[in-house]
């Protein structure tokens, strides 16, 4: 055996390798970034639930997290900033048999795309939406996001943020999402389980993943080393499944409340209601 064959053998042994476009490695993400571990948990969940590759669709918006759809060996759509959810809705309504996932950033989903998020919850369209919340606009160099905690510094809040941030699980819950959870990218196993649980449900499912961005967020907020934010998550996290989402607002000096918060069973999806209407109209 020559050296190359050995290397290839080893590569094939990696359990998630079949999901990746290995030829595109290395990826663009920085050391210590939470996007990679989040995708890892998602891939493991796909395997756990047993969803075949050709049924998986990955839609993303724009940002560091948005680049993920180009690294997976599934049908991947890197769309425009904020529009991943409506793009995914169109796709899913035409091919309801597909497992359609939106994985995107906090700015993408809650600033420029915030309106689509709440309306998708309200309509209960059948999507799994994962937000890598790194409290910042990572890709563009660390500007203020609607998720930046009060007082934190960013390149556009150099004296500290004066705006209250969104409590995104509460927003999803109040808008009608059927599954709402929050984990961090260091809770890979629990995150994987939560994603798998969400994958087995129908309707609008939302998981927020708190995700370190040492480069664009940590550096300006006294958490500059690749592991500092992970350490903050480790020390401050409290798991409280079923917590009232109105009580999980992120505040810097308070515990980070994680868990599977909401699970609503039996709420019909937009697609189901549309099909019912079709039957009614045709039966007239």
């Amino acid at each position, binding site marked *: 055996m020559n050296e190359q064959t050995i290397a290839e053998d080893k590569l094939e042994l990696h359990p998630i390798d079949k999901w990746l476009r290995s030829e595109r490695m290395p990826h663009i993400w920085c050391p210590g970034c939470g996007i990679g571990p989040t995708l890892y948990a998602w891939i493991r969940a796909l395997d756990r639930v047993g969803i075949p590759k050709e049924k998986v669709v990955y839609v993303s918006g724009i940002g560091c997290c948005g680049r993920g759809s180009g690294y997976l060996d599934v049908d991947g*759509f890197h769309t425009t900033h904020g529009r991943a959810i409506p*793009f995914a809705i169109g796709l899913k309504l*035409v*091919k309801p048999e597909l497992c359609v996932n939106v994985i995107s950033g906090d700015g993408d989903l809650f600033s420029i795309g915030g309106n689509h998020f709440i309306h998708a919850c309200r309509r209960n369209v059948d999507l799994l939406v994962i937000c890598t919340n790194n409290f910042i606009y990572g890709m563009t160099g660390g500007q203020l996001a609607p998720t930046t905690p009060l007082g934190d510094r960013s390149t556009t809040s150099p004296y500290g943020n004066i705006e209250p941030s969104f409590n995104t699980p509460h927003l999803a819950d109040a808008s009608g999402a059927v599954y709402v959870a929050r984990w961090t990218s260091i809770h890979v196993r629990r995150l994987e389980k939560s994603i798998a649980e969400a994958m087995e449900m129908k309707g609008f499912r939302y998981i927020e993943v708190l995700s370190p961005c040492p480069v664009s967020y940590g550096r300006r907020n006294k958490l500059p080393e690749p592991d500092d934010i992970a350490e903050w998550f480790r020390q401050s996290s409290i798991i409280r499944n079923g917590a009232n989402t109105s009580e999980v607002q992120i505040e810097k000096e308070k515990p980070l409340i994680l868990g599977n918060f909401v699970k609503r069973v039996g709420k019909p999806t937009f697609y189901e209601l549309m099909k019912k209407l079709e039957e009614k109209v045709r039966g007239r």
Partner: protein
Amino acid sequence: MRKAVLTGKHFWYGNIAIAEGAIVAGCRFFAGYPITPASEIAEHISRRFPEIGGTFVQFEDELASIAAMLGASWAGAKSMTSTSGPGFSLMQENIGLGVMMEVPIVIVNVQRGAPSTGLPTLTAQGDVMQTKWGSHGSYEIIALSPDSPQEAFNLTIRCFNLAEKYRVPVILLTSETVGHSAGKVVVPPKDKIELVQRKKPKVPPEDYLPYKPDEDLIPPMACAGEGYAFTTTGLTHDEKGYPDTTAEAHEKLVRRLNDKIRRHLKDIVDVEEENMEDADIAVVSYGQVSRPARKAVGMAREDGIKAGSIKLITIWPFAEHVIHRWAKQVEYFVVPELNYGQIYLEVKREAAGEAKSLLIPRMGGKLITPTEIYREIKKVSEK
């Protein structure tokens, strides 16, 4: 009203003819947001789609509507939206995504007075240049403009055929007057209507390159869930669909996206010429203004003036070869339009040095009458 194709004679508003034309063309996904004077299209589709099995969604805004259409088209559905100026402006970014990802979609813009909220209920042709240049970057797009309910019906079908063939967003650029005037519309039997479907890959998934064009510069299109595991992006990309943000990759891609349209001008561009054989004066018009324009040409002929009519059915890409050719024969191009000079600029550019051009502008929702056009023809004939 259960069938998809309502073969027969109807008396329809232009907007209804568009909705029915879309259904005949195979459109089964509609996403939109209410706006005057386009709402009747969405309203009609919302009644018809449950009967024939299509997906209608009234979205939260036009940003969502166009994004959803792109997603639906990637899932294999022929998709359409209808809007007017303000909504069309909101759609511009994702029209660019449609151009970049090469997604067949059809956008109906029922034009109204503008800028801004302008004259919501009154007609205009002010979005001609926006249709060409509204999204950022150098790109080619296709736009057609009807002058009657029947033509609105026919051209809607053609919009879908062109979108599918060239993998590009196609715009039906109509106007309030065409949308809200009723006329006879003949729907032919289903088997007499020619429909085009997008090219599918002929290679197995492992050999498929989503952005490798054929000879005609158009790449075959796999759709989501067909097992091709392709990736696509609005970033500059290579034939694999992978981001490649080098100057070479960008130049190559932008050239192809433009050339796939420019090289097929003869196939895409449709004009109707009348009385042009011996004409000294050509009236160039499009959409609703074509009707008074043709009448005015008739009046001029009765007066012994050698006038002719060039009606542009395809607005974009511009019929430059047509204007270029006639510029060698005519002395004057007269261009009546419901704006302050848009297609006029294109005509002037193509006529440069060979013939003169005169604009008859009209804003404010009032129509241009045949007599007004005739008077201008007469004036230039006396020069």
